[in-house]
């Protein structure tokens, strides 16, 4: 079952010299995939992720997420759709600096209106999952980059989304932190069937991905299954 389906998606940034960030992109991502979108800088990886995540709208083409045509949704409907269906992990962690690790994880569940009991147990479960149960009362400024990114993963998972979009999640991490993070995500994918879609330059991510989609100049130039992946 496809969780993401793109049909002939184009994205052009207007200007004196318009930039064609995505050109006739069509693809689908099935539930439970661990997929990397790769390509050189400016190839359209982040734009593709933004379009899939409903953060940006395509100039033309259609995007279905969980069988919903998200292009037709209004801004507020999109925000609500993201809240219920998509988890985000950003390159720069992007945690809320005034909240503790536990409160950051709890945040999206609060926006969903989940009960206190449910929130508390999910926060404990997720922080345990990413190995930060003992740091739950620390604010982002008191955590290392790798720890912050693990909190970001826990936050993305908290509302039980259909899939996680991760934009260069290991870009700012040292090798050990990146490995730990990838181990956690691979384990969640394997054990709970959570779909992960990465945009990345990082070979460590690419090696673990079961599917690698390569973009160049906004076009999909290859889409292959990675039989050597560690996640397989």
């Amino acid at each position, binding site marked *: 079952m496809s969780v993401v389906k793109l049909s002939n998606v184009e994205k052009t940034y207007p200007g004196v010299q318009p930039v064609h960030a995505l050109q006739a992109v069509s693809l689908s991502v099935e539930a439970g995939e661990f997929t990397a979108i790769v390509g050189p800088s400016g190839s359209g990886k982040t734009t593709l992720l933004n379009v899939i995540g409903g*953060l940006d709208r395509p100039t033309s083409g259609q995007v279905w997420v969980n069988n919903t045509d998200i292009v037709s949704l209004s801004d507020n409907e999109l925000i609500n759709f993201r809240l219920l269906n998509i988890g985000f992990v950003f390159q720069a962690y992007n945690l809320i600096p005034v909240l503790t690790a536990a409160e950051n994880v709890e945040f999206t569940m609060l926006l969903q209106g989940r009960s206190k009991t449910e929130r508390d147990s999910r926060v404990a479960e997720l922080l345990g999952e990413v190995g930060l149960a003992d740091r739950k009362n620390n604010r982002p400024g008191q955590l290392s980059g790798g720890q912050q990114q693990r909190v970001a993963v826990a936050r993305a998972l908290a509302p039980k989304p259909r899939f996680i979009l991760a934009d260069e999640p290991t870009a700012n991490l040292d090798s050990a932190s990146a490995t730990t993070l990838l181990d956690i995500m691979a384990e969640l994918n394997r054990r709970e069937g959570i779909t992960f879609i990465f945009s990345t330059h990082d070979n460590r991510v690419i090696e673990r991905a079961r599917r690698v989609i390569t973009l160049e100049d906004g076009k999909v130039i290859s889409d292959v299954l990675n039989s050597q992946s560690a996640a397989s």
Partner: protein
Amino acid sequence: MLIQIAWRNVWRSRLRSGIVIAAIAIGLFAGLFFMGFSWGLSIQRVDSAIAGEFSHIQVHNPGWKEDHSTRDTVTGGMALIREIQQRPSVKAASARVMNEGMFTTARGATGIQIHGVEPEEEIALTHLNETLVEGQYLDSARGTPILVGKSLAEKYKLRLRNTVVLTFQDASGHVTSGAFKVSGFYQTVNAKNDQSKVFVKRSDLQALMGMDAEVHEIAILLQNPDSVPEVQASLVAERPDLKVETWKELAPDLRLIVDAVGSKMMVFMVIILLALGFGIVNTMMMSVLERTRELGMLMAVGMNKLRVFLMIMYETVFLTMVGAPLGMFMGWVAIQYFGKKGIDLAAFSEGLSQYGFDTMIYTALTPEFYIQVAVMVVATALISAIFPAWRALRLKPVEAIHSL
């Protein structure tokens, strides 16, 4: 959690928030203290004018207002004042004989207002005896005593027991004179009045003017200033042949002082709050702009626009509401303190007394003013919050997340 995040966001930049909070607190303190000073000054002026000059209500013959003719007396004045003094709403009342004439001393002469008063009545009404700075009050002096303003006495180098001559028209229109012995010097906060007014016994003036038990003016002080319209109405109903006026009608300039000071104080506070409002907007704009990526992230993970708008509104309101009570409390404390201790403006005594103002100013402010200021502060906070919150709403998550 929205409120919790907003509250913590206020304290992210402690120095910046601290400066804005201090500016709000100091601005409101200064504004309130100025209001307390202005209100205290004007209330004192009004109170002293009511106590010493106008009382709450005055009754005259309608013709008296036209040309102050000595023939325009209050018919049945003595019976009327006895009836007025019996009323429970009346604190004190005095019947006066008034005239204008020439005040002549060995060193010169000047025009003067002569107030013929009953000493006891005037003690109860205006506390005239308490204004004496030298000599004896009218009731304890022998002969035909006269009380002279200290500034007038200094001008003509008068001493106690000196004789002065008052020349004026009697009730039949003939010019007559009387010699009076200076029994005392009085001094009020109104130097101008002190130079133009002397007090003699009512019976002495009535005798010289050839009047029986007639009077020109009945001044009334009430137990409760709020009952002025009610008492005025009952007197008008009882004696439609007389002119019954309140202090506001007798002294429109005083009424103007009260009204103008109230408006002036509010304008001053609006200016302060306007300046503070711009400071708040500036601070919140800085806060929003430097958190562009964070706000974009919040919208990306599912925080809708209403919540983003509310969060910025809360932050602005918190920023204002921490400083405002502090400033209002400091203002209240200062007003209470100087309301008891007073602010000594003796250095400016000459200028102040020319306009009838006391040199010791006791700050005062009614609860209504505090409430009005509080409402204005809340309005300032909400209005100041709108622009930064609106700017936050205009952020596009995708652009905000990738901004530096």
